């Protein structure tokens, strides 16, 4: 029922308004209740009469106030809402709901989802059938293709997340339901971006019923290309006409750490602009992605493959060094890692792997096949960087820029006159020109170039006495550079100085100057995804259903269900990427044919006013209470000055109270061990979890020296998680993806050494942690590799010895924990565990006290598991040694047997 601007969902309640006059009379006739006083000299009052003793009626204004409060309440119960214009269209007949769920919809996804839910709420009231069509293609169709009830459709929509690729409306056209022919209403929640199939799709929708298109207020923008250059990172930003005209881009590492940001502004009329993040090259080389700040979509994120801007450098390292941290390859890798992608290995794999430069630490004559392979590679444009050493001094092959005299020259030894030498200033034509050699960098041993051959090579650096120390010579299209000292600090302190890094960087600038350095025969293996983007542009390890991409289709791969955007790698190649926004895509505003109503996405929300009306009525009733007390003379009578001060204080309290909810208390609480759980979208579930943890806290207090404070529910998006040793995360019935800030906070929490325990509550149905509720809860999180834990895990020993495994709701529960290899940085203490036992519910049920000799109930076993879990979070691997106890005991026993 519509009255003016108001729509009443329950108009029958308005009939109660008719009773208002009666209420008015009753209220008018009821005097306020007297205040009762104990009064000893009552006898003296006998026979006294006051004039107004006969007043039996409440004052008129009070009655009016009460009647108004009642009227507001009645209107409130009629469930009023501000009526949107469109609402009358909800006739009987099926509804077709089309949702563009590509990355182009991701920036406005909350509004899109809300709009879809509003439409479904209306059709739920009208009891319409609903058909849902999702335009982004998927490997398995996610829209049912058949009639749903509005409630089911709402469930579908509430779980819906945007895909990291563009909608394909040509494909969606084919998937439009064949029946019915005609819909009562067609609602198209669109991303507002055109594509080749859009016009035909819109026409088809028009044939099927009255169409309303909901367009987001701001269209998505995209980063179309990005590359690391000498000045930093250049990116091309595009927008659909009418998109937001300015913004900023940020360059980030793979881990999501921001490296720098740059602003951009579209020139008037232009829909494409170049933006730059100014960064030193070695920092720019670490960037893994560029994204538009404040716009979370896969298209607004551009991935930079590991090789872009960084030379791919191979270090020849046969492996097996006794002291890896003192070996030459280690010094080289540390020096060049900031600006180069480094591989280690033997010569053959490196040459075949398409290295742009190869570093060869001290090596004498190479075996002929390797020497030949290397020679061919150099002639094709490779850069070989060699270092001297005892083996080079002994004998060397011909892959050197200059002929060397056998043996080495020692400077400043016990038997020599000469002092260790420093560098001479670099010559102007040397690539090192401009660098200033520090005075304290000295060379104590070097290999000497044959003076007769010195003219063959170019000398890049000399010692103070003129002896060449870095020489270079061209070979074919390539270049050989020789440092006449060792790569490690054995012969000089050069590798310990910053000069070393600078010299290597300048040297490696010569790498890859000829494309020919990349091997001719490309490897043909398939590309494997290493990290994939979701629709919001967040990177995550691929799920178990991720597929490899055959090499032949990879170069032309466009983001789609079979080639999701993300980082890919394969053996023998530098990593590569598939990006969500392809340069071939058009990026223009959606043109709608006539006859399709166009509405803003967030313009017309149905606004329920029930709360406002009821709240106002409650306020008036509260006011009435105060007035009634005042009339009865029961309010404390204070001197007028005190009264106003009191009123002001009360007002101040009311104003400031929500602003500072017990900060001092919070600060104190931080020093207390408290069990915490992550609040979900399911309040009922949260209550159970809180109750379960409260029970567990009580058991901990009773049985252990852990005395946890009150249980606290945290919101990972806003709260500081660091005070809590463990976060219990029970899966809600409809798990949702976490926000970016929540993901970042949880990632940080895990890195800090916190333990997240995720309870999927699906008791045995989970096959692997990559599926089921855990998958959607952990989406976007930097999830470490997990392994299923067995009976010898430290979790079985932290407090109770759980010999018979873990008890949960079902008989056989399974628990996955971060693998100890992955957790090596934290001494093998897992930061993430996933179980399916629904423990919080068991704890919350409570159990009766039991004696020591009775067999443990399932509740008791679950409690013991909880105690062990908390202990694990507090003690880490402290009890790991217990794993070895049986073996130790056995050994002790054997020795005592042997001794007698």
């Amino acid at each position, binding site marked *: 029922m519509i009255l003016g601007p108001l729509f009443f969902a329950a108009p029958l309640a308005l009939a109660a308004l008719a009773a208002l006059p009666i209420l008015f009379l009753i209220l008018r006739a009821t*005097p*306020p*209740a*007297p*205040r*009762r*006083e*104990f*009064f*000893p*000299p*009552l*006898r*003296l*009052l*006998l026979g*006294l009469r*006051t*004039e*107004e*003793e*006969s*007043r039996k009626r409440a004052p008129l204004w009070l009655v009016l106030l009460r009647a108004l409060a009642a009227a507001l309440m009645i209107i409130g119960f009629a469930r009023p809402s501000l009526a949107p214009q469109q609402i009358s269209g909800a006739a009987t007949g099926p509804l077709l709901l089309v949702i563009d769920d590509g990355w182009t919809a991701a920036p406005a996804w909350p509004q899109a989802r809300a709009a879809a839910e509003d439409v479904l709420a209306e059709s739920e009231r009208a009891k319409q059938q609903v058909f849902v069509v999702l335009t982004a293609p998927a490997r398995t169709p996610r829209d049912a293709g058949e009639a749903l009830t509005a409630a089911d459709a709402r469930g579908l929509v509430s779980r819906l997340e945007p895909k990291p690729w563009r909608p394909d409306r040509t494909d969606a056209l084919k998937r439009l339901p064949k029946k019915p022919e005609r819909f009562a209403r067609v609602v198209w929640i669109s991303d507002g971006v055109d594509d080749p199939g859009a016009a035909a799709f819109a026409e088809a929708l028009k044939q099927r019923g009255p169409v309303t298109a909901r367009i987001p207020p701001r269209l998505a923008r995209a980063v179309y290309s990005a590359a690391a250059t000498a000045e930093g990172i250049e990116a091309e930003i595009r927008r659909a006409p009418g998109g937001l005209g300015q913004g900023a881009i940020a360059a980030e590492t793979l881990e999501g750490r921001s490296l720098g940001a740059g602003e951009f502004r579209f020139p008037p009329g232009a829909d494409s602009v170049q933006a730059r993040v100014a960064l030193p090259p070695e920092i720019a080389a670490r960037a893994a992605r560029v994204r538009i700040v404040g716009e979370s979509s896969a298209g607004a994120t551009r991935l930079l493959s590991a090789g872009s801007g960084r030379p791919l450098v191979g270090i020849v390292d046969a492996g097996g060094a006794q002291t890896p941290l003192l070996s030459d390859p280690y010094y080289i890798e540390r020096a060049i890692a900031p600006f180069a992608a480094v591989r280690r290995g033997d010569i053959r794999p490196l040459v075949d792997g398409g290295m742009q430069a190869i570093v060869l630490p001290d090596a004498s004559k190479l075996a002929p096949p390797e020497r030949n392979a290397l020679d061919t590679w150099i002639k094709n444009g490779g850069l070989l960087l060699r270092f001297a050493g005892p083996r080079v001094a002994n004998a060397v092959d011909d892959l050197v820029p200059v002929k060397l005299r056998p043996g080495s020259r020692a400077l400043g030894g016990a038997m020599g006159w000469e002092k260790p030498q420093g560098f001479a200033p670099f010559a102007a034509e040397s690539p090192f020109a401009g660098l200033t050699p520090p005075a304290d960098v000295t060379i104590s041993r070097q290999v000497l170039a044959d003076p007769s051959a010195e003219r063959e090579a170019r000398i890049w650096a000399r010692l103070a006495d003129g002896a060449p120390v870095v020489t270079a010579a061209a070979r074919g299209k390539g270049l050989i550079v020789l440092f006449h000292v060792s790569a490690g600090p054995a012969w000089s302190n050069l590798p310990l100085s910053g000069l070393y890094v600078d010299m290597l960087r300048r040297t490696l600038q010569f790498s890859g100057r000829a494309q020919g350095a990349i091997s001719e025969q490309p490897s043909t293996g398939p590309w494997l995804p290493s990290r994939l983007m979701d629709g919001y542009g967040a990177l995550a390890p691929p799920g178990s259903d991720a597929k490899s991409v055959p090499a032949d289709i990879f170069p032309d791969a466009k983001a789609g269900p079979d080639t999701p955007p993300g980082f890919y790698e394969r053996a023998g190649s530098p990593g590569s990427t598939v990006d969500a926004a392809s340069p071939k895509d058009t990026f223009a505003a959606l043109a709608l044919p006539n006859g399709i109503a166009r509405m803003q996405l967030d313009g017309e929300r149905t606004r329920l006013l029930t709360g406002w009306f009821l709240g106002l009525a409650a306020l008036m009733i509260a006011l009435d209470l105060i007035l009634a007390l005042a*009339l*009865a*003379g*029961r309010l404390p*009578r204070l001197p007028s000055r005190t009264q106003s001060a009191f009123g002001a204080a009360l007002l101040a309290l009311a104003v400031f109270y929500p602003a500072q909810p017990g900060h001092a208390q919070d600060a104190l609480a931080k020093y207390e061990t408290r069990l915490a759980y992550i609040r979900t979208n399911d309040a009922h579930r949260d209550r159970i979890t809180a109750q379960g943890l409260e029970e567990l806290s009580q058991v901990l207090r009773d049985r252990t020296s852990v005395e946890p404070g009150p249980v606290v529910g945290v919101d990972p998006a806003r709260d500081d998680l660091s005070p809590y040793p463990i976060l219990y995360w029970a899966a809600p019935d409809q798990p949702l993806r976490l926000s970016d800030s929540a993901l970042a906070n949880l990632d940080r929490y895990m890195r800090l050494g916190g333990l997240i325990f995720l309870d999927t509550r699906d008791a045995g149905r989970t096959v692997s942690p990559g599926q089921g509720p855990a998958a959607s809860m952990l989406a976007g999180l930097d999830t470490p590799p997990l392994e299923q834990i067995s009976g010898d895990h430290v979790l079985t020993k932290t407090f109770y010895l759980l010999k018979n495994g873990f008890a949960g709701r079902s008989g056989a529960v399974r628990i996955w924990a971060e693998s100890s290899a992955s957790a090596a940085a934290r001494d093998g203490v897992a930061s993430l565990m996933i179980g399916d036992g629904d423990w919080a519910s068991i704890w919350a049920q409570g159990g009766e006290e039991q004696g020591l000799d009775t067999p443990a109930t399932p509740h008791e076993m679950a409690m013991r598991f909880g105690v062990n879990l908390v202990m694990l979070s507090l003690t880490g691997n402290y009890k790991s040694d217990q794993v070895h106890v049986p073996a130790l005991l056995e050994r002790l026993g054997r020795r005592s047997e042997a001794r007698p």
Partner: protein
Amino acid sequence: MSELQTARTEAANLAGDLPGVLLEARRLAAFTPGVHGRRRSGAGEAFWQFRDHRPEDGARLVDWRRSARGERLYVRERERETAQTGLFWIDRSPGMGWSSSPATPTKHHRALVLCLAFAVLLSKGGERIGALGGPAPRAGMRAADRLAPDLIAPQRSEPAEPKGKSIVIYASDFYAPVELWAQRLKAAAAVGASGALIQISDPAEEDFPFRGRTQFEQPGTVQPITFGRAEEAREAYASRLVQHRQAMREMARIYGFMLIAHRTDHSAAPALSLLTASLSERG
């Protein structure tokens, strides 16, 4: 719970508070000048002075031990003792155990403090003290301590008649009709008793601060009385109260009793001073 039980419970509550009350009473008494300046010779136990022997004294009165030290004859005189009996009665009606605000003590508490303080002063002067209608009056320093439990013991609400010549202190709010008290005091005066009435009142009873629609009640007595606007009854009440007080004062004076008015929100010391002054006049 029967009335007796209620009274016992109240007494037990009060008794728990007794040390405090006693201390309060002693402190009050310490700041009040003593009453018994009966400094003259007479029949008594304590030595008072030696005086010269006069011929009419006869030989029996000569204090030979003192006289042997000199040429003259001496007579030993003792201090006159006029031991009186102080009797106390405290009204224990429900109205007494009430106070209008937590800041002021109940009327009963204040009555107890005043009575005990006066009892302490009396016992310092060597008088016997006791509860009206209670055990036989005692003398000595500990008498006040013994008196306290007797005063709060469940008693009849009617005061007993004093047995003989004595000082009787009645502590009450005296809201009972004047005629009733006239009978009681008449009976007391008949046996030679005199004394004082300590009229204790709560500030609310004096000022009548009530406003708005108010229902006045007192358990166990007349019907509750409801006023639409209590503030309008203030004038009438005040004049009635003054009338009642005046009548009570006149009546008491006739029978040789002094009426001392006291409010619980005032200090107890002036009331005690007034009490001692009025009673010591009598010698």
